[in-house]
């Protein structure tokens, strides 16, 4: 009898301790990108990202919120990406409400590498579930081709120099230097400059933006009292190339919305918020901000410059060898 009682008590304790976890396992979180992850490229076009939350029955969960955090790829390897200040930093952090079990947003990935997307779901009944997704964004092929061409050019400069120096003809030195300058030279900063927001019914507060550090973007309805639920569309556009870097469409918000977002390009950006509701005039709020660029530290410059110098040196050695054989 006492053994049965002990067994029953033990089962109750297990159920009490691990019950929420078991319930969380019933929740499934799916992540999808369009185009598919293999075709994503940095600084191309903004990708469509979506999360689907389903319950134990496989049907989309209707009510709940999803906390999303996107982290940039960590620094790794000898050569850095073209924006090393962004490496390993938090890119965006937001909490979006579910619509038919889904959340959708658009994002322009800034650099190549392995991204980490952490998702925390909280259901209307308090159910919680978390999942992390890792995906790799590959570099644009044309950048690798440009790097290959540039490297080959440096090698050839070294090769020609090696041949000339071996032949001891000083008058050709000027030609080699001219070639070096020609190969090296071919081929767009910033303080907050806010424009007045359109429409007086809403406001947009954006922290000063620096590359490498997320800024808080806060949209809110003006006035006190009950705030109606509106469909908010938030778009961030990089103005220099007129590219949408982030967008979230018609998310239901009750008076305010806040998110952390890192501007990864040190140039002008426009943040536009459009709040709509049936029977109401849409409220548009817009702000242009200048993002402060941050110079990468010298230590991340050294590997790339060393790589180029080694290519020239190898060219010189090859040029001398070709002349003497």
């Amino acid at each position, binding site marked *: 009898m006492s053994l049965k009682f002990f067994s029953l008590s033990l089962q109750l304790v297990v159920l009490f301790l691990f019950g929420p976890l078991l319930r969380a396992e019933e929740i499934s979180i799916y992540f999808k990108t369009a185009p598919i992850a293999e075709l994503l490229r940095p600084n191309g076009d903004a990708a469509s990202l979506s999360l689907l939350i389903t319950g134990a029955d496989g049907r989309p969960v209707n009510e709940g919120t999803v906390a999303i955090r996107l982290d940039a790829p960590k620094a790794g390897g000898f050569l850095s990406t073209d924006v090393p200040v962004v490496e390993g930093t938090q890119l965006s952090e937001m909490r979006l409400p579910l619509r038919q079990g889904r959340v959708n947003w658009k994002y322009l990935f800034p650099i190549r590498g392995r991204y980490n997307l952490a998702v925390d779901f909280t259901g209307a009944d308090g159910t919680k579930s978390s999942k992390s997704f890792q995906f790799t964004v590959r570099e644009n092929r044309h950048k690798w081709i440009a790097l290959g061409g540039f490297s080959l050019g440096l090698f050839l400069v070294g090769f020609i120099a090696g041949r000339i120096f071996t032949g001891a003809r000083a008058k050709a030195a000027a030609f080699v230097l001219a070639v070096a300058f020609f190969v*090296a030279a071919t081929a767009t900063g910033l303080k907050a400059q806010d424009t007045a927001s359109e429409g007086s019914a809403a406001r947009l507060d954006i922290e000063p933006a620096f590359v490498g550090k997320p800024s808080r973007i806060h949209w809110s309805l003006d006035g006190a009292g009950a705030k109606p639920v509106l469909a908010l569309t938030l778009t961030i556009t990089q103005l220099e190339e007129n590219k949408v870097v982030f967008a979230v469409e018609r998310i239901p918000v009750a008076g305010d919305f806040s998110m952390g977002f890192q501007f990864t390009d040190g140039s002008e950006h426009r943040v536009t918020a459009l709040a709509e509701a049936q029977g109401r005039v849409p409220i548009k709020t817009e702000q242009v901000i200048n993002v402060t660029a941050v110079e990468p530290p010298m230590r991340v410059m050294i590997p790339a410059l060393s790589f180029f110098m080694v290519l020239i040196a190898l060219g010189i050695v090859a040029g001398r060898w070709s002349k003497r054989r």
Partner: protein
Amino acid sequence: MEKTVASRLFIALPEQISFLIKSGIFLMVCGATLFIALASSYPAVHDTLHNVRHALAVVPCH
């Protein structure tokens, strides 16, 4: 001409040493040129070559 000048100034050097000196000077000039073009933050140079830096995938910029 180089040989003539060198012999008149009595600074004629063995070919290997001459090659090393010339190569060294050449590498320093190339290094300085690459540093100014790809790594310096001087606005006139940076703004002109900003797209080139990004196009090379491995050159750090902002």
